[in-house]
C-alpha cells in the first residue's frame, strides 16, 4: 500500500536520478569544448534566381578568433539544376593552392590551400563561384569534408562548422539577369621564379618554381619556355605547372616564365642562364681551339715540309 501510494514519487526520483546522471555525463564530456568554431559560409548574391540566369556564390571563412593557415574541402551542387561556369580566386586569402579548384563536369569539386602566416578575420574570401541556373528547382550547394588547420606550427585542426546554402530557381523569364564579366587590363602580379634542384625531385634535376596572383580575373595558366638566345616577352612556351623540370639541365638557356590570367593578360619574367658566359660558350671555344690547333698543326707541318 505504501509502495503503491508513493510509487509515482519513487518513479519520479528514479527518473530524476536517471536524467541527472545523463546530464552529468554529458556535462563531463562537453564542458571543455570551445564555445566557438571557425565557419565556412556560402553566400549567394541572390537566393532566388530565374532559370538561364547567372548568379554568384562567395565562399567565406570566418576564423572566429583563431588564426588559420590551411583550408580544404569540397563544394557540391546538383548538376541537373546548376552549371558551374567559373571559379574565381583572384582575391582569395589562399596564397598557394595544394589542390587548385577547377570547373569539372562532376557535381563536386575539391580545393585545398595555404596562407603563410595564417588568416584571422570574420570574412576572408576563399573562392567566388559563378553559376548558371539550368531549370526551376531548389538546389542546395554544400561545403563538405571541410578541414581548417591552425597556424600553430603543428597543423592542429580547428573546429569547423558550415551550413548548406539553399536556393530557389524560378521559371525562365527571358530577362538577361545579372552579368559577372570582369574588366581587367592589368597583368598578373610581379613574381620571381626560382631555379633550384633537390635530390628528392626527379633525381636532382634542375627545376623552376613559380607562383603569382591576378587580382582581377585570376590566373588561368603558366607557360615556360627555354631559349639559347635572349628571348622577347612574347617568345613561345609550353603550358606548365610548378615545379617544372627544365629540359636544358646544363642551365645554358634563358628560361621564360609567363603567367596568363583568364582574360589573356600576361606577365613575363625572363631568367638569365645560370651557366657562366664561359660555360655557355664552351662548345664554341672548344671548336675555336680545335680549329686553331688544326691551323697550328697545319702550319707546323707545312713549315717542317718546307724545311
Amino acid at each position: 500500500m505504501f509502495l503503491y501510494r508513493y510509487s509515482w514519487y519513487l518513479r519520479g526520483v528514479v527518473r530524476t536520478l536517471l536524467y541527472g546522471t545523463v546530464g552529468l555525463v554529458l556535462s563531463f564530456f562537453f564542458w571543455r569544448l570551445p564555445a566557438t568554431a571557425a565557419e565556412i559560409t556560402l553566400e549567394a548574391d541572390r537566393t532566388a534566381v530565374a532559370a538561364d540566369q547567372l548568379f554568384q556564390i562567395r565562399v567565406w571563412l570566418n576564423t572566429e578568433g583563431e588564426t588559420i593557415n590551411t583550408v580544404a574541402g569540397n563544394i557540391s551542387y546538383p548538376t541537373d539544376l546548376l552549371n558551374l561556369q567559373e571559379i574565381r580566386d583572384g582575391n582569395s586569402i589562399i596564397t598557394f593552392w595544394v589542390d587548385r579548384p577547377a570547373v569539372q563536369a562532376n557535381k563536386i569539386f575539391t580545393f585545398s590551400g595555404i596562407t603563410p602566416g595564417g588568416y584571422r578575420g570574420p570574412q576572408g574570401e576563399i573562392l567566388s563561384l559563378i553559376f548558371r541556373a539550368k531549370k526551376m528547382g531548389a538546389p542546395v550547394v554544400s561545403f563538405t569534408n571541410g578541414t581548417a588547420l591552425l597556424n600553430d606550427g603543428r597543423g592542429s585542426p580547428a573546429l569547423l562548422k558550415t551550413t548548406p546554402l539553399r536556393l530557389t530557381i524560378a521559371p525562365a523569364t527571358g530577362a538577361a539577369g545579372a552579368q559577372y564579366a570582369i574588366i581587367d587590363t592589368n597583368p598578373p602580379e610581379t613574381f620571381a621564379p626560382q631555379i633550384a634542384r633537390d635530390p628528392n625531385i626527379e633525381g636532382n634535376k634542375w627545376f623552376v618554381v613559380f607562383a603569382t596572383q591576378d587580382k582581377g580575373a585570376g590566373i588561368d595558366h603558366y607557360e615556360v619556355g627555354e631559349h639559347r638566345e635572349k628571348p622577347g616577352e612574347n617568345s613561345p612556351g609550353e603550358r606548365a605547372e610548378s615545379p617544372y623540370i627544365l629540359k636544358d639541365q646544363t642551365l645554358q638557356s634563358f628560361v621564360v616564365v609567363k603567367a596568363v590570367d583568364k582574360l589573356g593578360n600576361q606577365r613575363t619574367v625572363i631568367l638569365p642562364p645560370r651557366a657562366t658566359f664561359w660555360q655557355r660558350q664552351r662548345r664554341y671555344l672548344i671548336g675555336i681551339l680545335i680549329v686553331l690547333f688544326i691551323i697550328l698543326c697545319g702550319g707546323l707541318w707545312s713549315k717542317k715540309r718546307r724545311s
Partner: protein
Amino acid sequence: MRRSLFISAGFVVFFWLASLALAEDYTSSNFTDHDPVISESGGYSSSTNFQLFSGSGQTVISESTGTAFTARTGFFYFPAVTSPVISATAGDAQVTLTWTAAAGYLGFNVSGYQVGQGTISGGPYSFSSVGNVLASTRASLTNGTPYYFVVRVLDYFSSVIATSSQVSATPVAATPAPSPSPSPSPGGGGGGGPTYPSAQTTVIFSGRAYPKSTVTLLKDAQVAATTVAGPDANFSITLTGLNGGNYIFSVYSEDTGGRRSSLLSFPVGVTAGATTNVSGIFIAPTIATDKSEVKKGDNVAIFGQSVPTAEILISVNSDNEYFAKTKSDKQGVYLYNFDTSPLEYGQHFTKSKSAISGEISSYGQTAAFLVGNKRSVAAKAPANCPAKADLNSDCHTNLIDFSIAAYWYKRKISPAFAEIEKAKLNGDGKVDLVDFSIMAYYWTG
C-alpha cells in the same frame, strides 16, 4: 517528466557554471597559489620566499606602481589584447579604414571597436563606436585635409582594452579612371570603388621591429621588399606598382643575435590608383633560452629582443601556464631568469609578447627547454634557419620547399625523403595538409 528534464538540465547548467568557477593554480616565477579562494574577510598565506596578505576580496585584476614598488592585485596572470594593424585609403571626401582583428588573451574578449578621428596628429580624436567589424568608411571629409585615425578595442563592458597606432590619410577628389580595374571583394579588408589621381597604386607600411634589424615584407607570401629599422626599432616600407585588390602582406625581422621573429600576416584591400597607409605593425619579440635542458630548481634565462624599453610578458606553457614580466633595455634586449622549481619534469615551451605606448604585439615564436633531474645543458646558438619545413636546407621556407612538398603530395614518399619528412614535417610518413600547415607557419618567403 518535464520536472525531471528541468532537473537534469539544471545539473548540466550547474556543472557548466561549476567548471567555470573552479579554482585554478596561479603562479609567479617563485610561488604557486593553489586553488585560490576569494575571501571577503581577508587572510594570510606564506611560504619560505613570499607572504601573501589577501585583501577584503578580489574585485579587479590590476597593477599599481610607485618609484619603489609594484603591487599587482588579483591572481598572477596578465590579460592582454593585441593591437590591430590599421590601414587607411583615401577616397573622394572619404577615407576607408580597415584593421585586423584584435586577439584577446586570458579573460579579455573583444566585443567591438571604436574609431577615433581627428585633424591633428596625436589627437584629440572624436570617437564613435562601429560595432564588432573590421572596416569603416569615414565620409563627409574635406578633400585636401589630412585626417588622423586610431582604432580602440572594446571588451564586453565597452571598456577600452587596446588602441592601435595612428594612421593618416588625405581625401582627394576623384577623377575618371584611366583604365578600369575590378573592385576587390570585401574579404580581407575592403577596398574597391573609383580610382583617384595618384600616379600609381602605393602602400606605405610602418611599424615596430627591433633596433637596426632587417625587416622583410612579403606580398602574398613572396619577398617584396626589405628595409632596416631605425635605432628606435621603427620602420617604414613603401611598395608601389600594385594592382587594386586584396593582398595578404606579412612581415618578419631578425634580431641582432640572428634569431628570426614569427611571421605577422595581415590582409589589406588595396585601391587602384590610391595610396594606402598601413600602420601599427608590431613584430613580436624574438625568444631563446640559455639552456636546452635545465635541472629542476635551476634558473633558465629567457631572452630575446623587442623594441627599446618595452614591457615584455613571458609565458611558460606547461600543465599550468606561468607568467612573468620584465622590461627591455635601450637596445630592445630583454632577459628574465625563470625559476624552474614549480615546473613539472618534461618539455616546456616559452613565448613572449611586447607592449609599449598602449600597443601590444602578438605572441612570437616559442622556445623549448627540458626540465630534468640531471645537470643543465647549455642551448646551442640559434641557427638562422626555420626550425621546420626548410626541406632543401637553404635556411628559408619558401616556394621551393612548397614545390618539393607538393611533388610528394599524394605520392608514396621515397626512403630518402621520408627522413626529411620525419625531421622537418610531422613525421607521419606522408605529405598531407598538416605538413603544408607546418610549412605555412614557418614560412619566410
